[in-house]
């Protein structure tokens, strides 16, 4: 996708966003190795402000905030991307089936989709996450299973438009089977849309993971930015004025989501006019 490359390297916004995402992905992979301390290691310096040995200060257990921040990147990146992919797959399949086959399939799937769109997402995620025992896998599953409706609706709309186009009718008249039509005509014209949308879903997924972790439904064996905020808040960091503990995790979430959302909107802008042009493999 040469178009993607021209967006990514085009504006300064895109380049900075890419850089930020790259940084966090790097931390996700190497964060625990490069962290100056073991993120869980406690010490006697409880809730200390930043010093040379602890550039971002310490937590209520004496753990190094910087190390926790670095280690926390992994959960956000992992859950964010994995959940978004699951959501994209479910949404695309539902949207495709709904838009292409129409009839009862459409009626049922579309109602299901609308229902998921109306239901408040976080309360639903909370309920699902609480039924099962909290872990990384549960988080990914819960977020993935509840965030697909947006993609589904977009895909369905696109497939509906494509289905009416002359080239699809022609293909059918020539005796092409559904699977062929979907593969060669529908999919190539829908994938860019799905891609652009999925990028934005990653941002939403990261925010969802952080919220769930903050509420205590995160993986207890791992540090994540959400759990950091939770721990900080629970241990009275606000009243202690422990800004070094409170600001970094939230800032990381904000920056990462900002970067992803910026790229997502750029892709979306790019994809939209292109939707008028139609391609076949």
């Amino acid at each position, binding site marked *: 996708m040469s178009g993607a490359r021209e967006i990514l390297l085009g504006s300064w916004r895109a380049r900075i966003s890419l850089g930020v995402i790259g940084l966090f992905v790097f931390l996700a992979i190497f964060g625990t190795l490069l962290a100056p301390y073991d993120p869980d290691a406690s010490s006697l310096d409880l809730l200390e402000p930043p010093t040379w040995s602890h550039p971002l200060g310490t937590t209520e257990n004496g753990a190094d905030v910087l190390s926790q921040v670095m280690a926390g990147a992994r959960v956000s990146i992992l859950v964010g991307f994995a959940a978004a992919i699951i959501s994209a797959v479910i949404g695309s399949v539902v949207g495709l089936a709904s838009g292409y086959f129409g009839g009862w399939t459409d009626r049922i799937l579309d109602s299901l989709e609308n229902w998921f769109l109306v239901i*408040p997402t976080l*309360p639903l995620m*909370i309920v699902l996450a609480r039924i099962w025992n909290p872990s990384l896998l549960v988080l990914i599953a819960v977020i993935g299973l509840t965030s697909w409706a947006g993609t589904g609706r977009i895909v369905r709309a696109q497939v509906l438009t494509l289905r009416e186009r002359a080239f699809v009718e022609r293909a059918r008249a020539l005796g092409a089977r559904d699977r062929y039509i979907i593969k060669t005509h529908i999919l190539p014209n829908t994938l860019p849309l799905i891609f652009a949308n999925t990028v934005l879903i990653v941002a939403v997924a990261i925010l969802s993971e952080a919220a769930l972790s903050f509420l205590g439904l995160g993986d207890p064996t791992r540090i994540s930015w959400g759990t950091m905020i939770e721990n900080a808040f629970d241990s009275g960091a606000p009243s202690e004025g422990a800004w070094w503990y409170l600001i970094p995790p*939230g800032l990381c*979430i904000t920056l990462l989501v900002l970067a992803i959302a910026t790229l997502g909107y750029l892709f979306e802008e790019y994809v939209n006019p292109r939707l008028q042009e139609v391609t076949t493999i």
Partner: protein
Amino acid sequence: MSARWLIGKLGVMAATLLFVIVFNFFLFRVMGDPTAQLARLPQATPEEIDKLKADYGLDKSLGGQFVDYMGDTLTLDLGISQRSREPVWDEIKDAIPWTLLLVGTGTLIATIIGSWMGVAAATRRGTRTDDGLLGFSLFTYAAPEYWLGILLILVFAVWIPIFPAGLQMSPGVEFSSWWAEVTDVLDHLILPATAMTLLLLGQYFLIMRSSMVDVLTEDFVVVKRATGLPWHRVVRSHAVPNALLPLVTIAAIQFGLVAGGAITIETIFSWPGLGELNFAAINDKDFPVLQGTFLVFSAGVILANFLADCLYFYLDPRVQSR
């Protein structure tokens, strides 16, 4: 007939609500066996477990349980809280007004400021004002609302102690008058409402901006200007009213965001609404309360959507004569 459109929406609302109630049932019965949770109660003998099972109706068949559940729910019997042993509905009933206060205030202010920002950005498209506003709203979108809430506490309740850091009222205080009590609540409302506003501001801004940009390309805007109407009046009296219409519909889709925000923000500020109830239930694994609050949140969002539809019906003459 105009009313048919409205009745149609009412029907959709009822159907969606019904589906939520049914979903709620299967969610808890089928996906997680409450008996397992009950078994974790300390020192529960098998007889006690059996008795609890009977109390919760878990000894009946699935079909029987479903009928019981439907009957109970529709009469607002949402079970007993595992933690407090109080009826779930009573706890919810007391919490709803507080959540409405928080959510209502936040939504109102966010709508007003967001719309105003949206108009400002749309009429200055491409300028630095527009870019600045877009950047600001993107930031409030990306920043977790509970984190912003905590920062608000840090700055305005700890460092510069102007506002209280939590609760809805000063505890243990005798109020000299009704008015004093109200001002105390308002004082406690400011920080959480600000967090709620920040959560929604970006969304409403973007929607209004996009809507205004579309409206400003319409022919009638040129015609109004051609009649000699000064530009600020064209914007205020003609463009904005038309741009508000899509805002109502699209903003309604965002109501789920409000519910999520209520949970996290009330948690931060110990605000005694549905959100805090939900949060406590998470920690206690209090499933009846979790189930109940989920139901009420969903019902609230569905109802809000319907009210938005009603508002749209009232505002748009094109729908009224369909």
